[in-house]
C-alpha cells in the first residue's frame, strides 16, 4: 500500500464514466469516477481501476497516487 494509509473499504454510492476531461486527465479518458461510502462513515470521490463498478458494489482502496485514491471492485 502506497502512502502509508490503511487499506480502506466501502460501497459505491454513485458513479460515472468520464469521456470529456480537462487536459491534465485527457490521457486517462474514458475513466470511472465514483463517490465511495467508506465503512468508517466518510464519503470520498475516487477513481475506479479495473472492472467497472455499479451502485452498491463493494470496493477496496488499491493505491493513493498524487493524492488521488484508487479503488477496485471486491467480492
Amino acid at each position, binding site marked *: 500500500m502506497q502512502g502509508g494509509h490503511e487499506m480502506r473499504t466501502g460501497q459505491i*454510492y*454513485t458513479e460515472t*464514466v*468520464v469521456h*470529456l476531461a*480537462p487536459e491534465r486527465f485527457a490521457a486517462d479518458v474514458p475513466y470511472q*469516477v465514483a463517490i465511495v461510502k467508506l465503512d468508517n462513515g466518510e464519503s470520498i470521490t475516487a477513481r475506479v481501476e479495473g472492472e467497472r463498478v455499479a451502485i452498491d458494489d463493494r470496493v477496496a482502496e488499491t493505491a493513493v497516487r498524487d493524492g488521488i485514491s484508487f479503488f477496485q471492485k471486491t467480492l
Partner: protein
Amino acid sequence: MRPVAIVGAGKTPFGAFPDQDLRALAVTAGQKALQNAQLEPGAIEAFYLGNFAGPEFTAQNHLAPYISTALGMTGIPSTRFEAACASSGAAFFQAFMGVASGVYDLVMIVGVEKMTCQPTPRVTEILSGAGDCATEVKAGSTFPSLFAMMARRHMHDFGTTREHLSAVAVKNHANGALNPDAQMRKVITLEQAMNARPIAEPLNLYDCSLISDGAAAVVLCSADRAREFSNKPVKILGVAQSSDFVALDQKPDITTFAAVRGAASKAYEMAKLAPGDIQFAELHDCFTIAEIVAMEDLGFVPRGRGGFFTAEGGTRRDGPMPINASGGLKSKGHPVGATGVAQLCDLVQQIRCEAGDRQLKRNSIGLAQNLGGSGATCVVTILGEY
C-alpha cells in the same frame, strides 16, 4: 422591508461572438435595460455585477467599475459577485436588499460571461473551479460528471430513465427554436437526444448546456416609484438565497438540492405563495438532470416524479407547468455569470406579454431558479404582475 420592482430589462443574444469582448457584451445589455426603463446612467445609485470567471477567461479583473464606468456611471458603489453559475442571481439578491432596505431607490444588476475565447478543455477546467479542487476535481470530476453521478443515483432511487433525461432536452430545444436570442435554435428528436456521444455516463452531449458568450441586465426600483420609469413594471414577490457544501461527496443525499429547497421555502414564504400558485418557471437546466431535480425540490411535482412528469409533457408550453419556455440553458445558451439575470429577463418578457411565439397564456406569476456549482448556491426569485 419595502416592495421592489423591476423597471428595466435587457440582454444580448447568447452565442459565440468573437468580435465582442466581455465589457462590450455587458455594456450592450446594460444600455438596453436603461433604455427599457427610460433612464440615464447617472440615475443609478449602485451597480452589481454577476460574473463567475472573467479573470480566468479574459485576464481582466476588477470588472465591476470596468463595466459601470463604460456605461457612464461614476462615483457609485460598483462590485462584482461570484457564486459560480449563480453569480448574477447572488448579485440580484444583494441588489434587491439594497432597495428593499431603503438605502437605494434605483440600482442596476448586470450578469455577463465571455467563454468562447477559450478552447473546450480549458473551459471545462475553469468551470471545475466551482467544485472542490482539493478533492473531487483532483480525482478527475468535471461538472458533467458531478451531474452524471446525481443522475445515476436518481435513476437508481426513483426509476428515472435515459428517455426522461432526453425528454428535457427535446422540450427545451423545441422552445429555444422559437427564441430569436437563443444560441441553438434547433429542434431535436428523442432519438437524436438519446444517442448523442457520451460526455459523462449516463449524460451525453444533448444533456449538457452550451458554452456561450452573453450578458443580461435589469434595473430595480422601489415599487412606489416604479410607474415613473415603466408602464410595465414587474413586482418582485419573493427572493431568497441558500447555500450548501461545495463538494458533492459531502451532501448526504445527491438526488435533491438542499440549497434549492432552502431558497424556495424562504421565497415562497416572502411571496405568501405555494408551489401550486406558480404558473411558469425558468429553471437552471445546466444539465437535463438538474431540471428534473429542481422541479421536485421546488414542489412542482413529488420527489422522484420529475422525469415522469417531463416525459408526459407536463413541462411543455401547453402543459400544466411550463418550464423553460425560453429554451433554457440547454438551447438558449449558458454564459454562466449572465444566466441568473437572463432568467429574470425571460420571466419579465412573459409577464409583459412580449415573448412572441413562446408567449404563455398563464403568465402572471413566474419563478426563476439559479443554481451555482453542483448545488452549493441557489437563488430563487418569484416575479409577478405589478
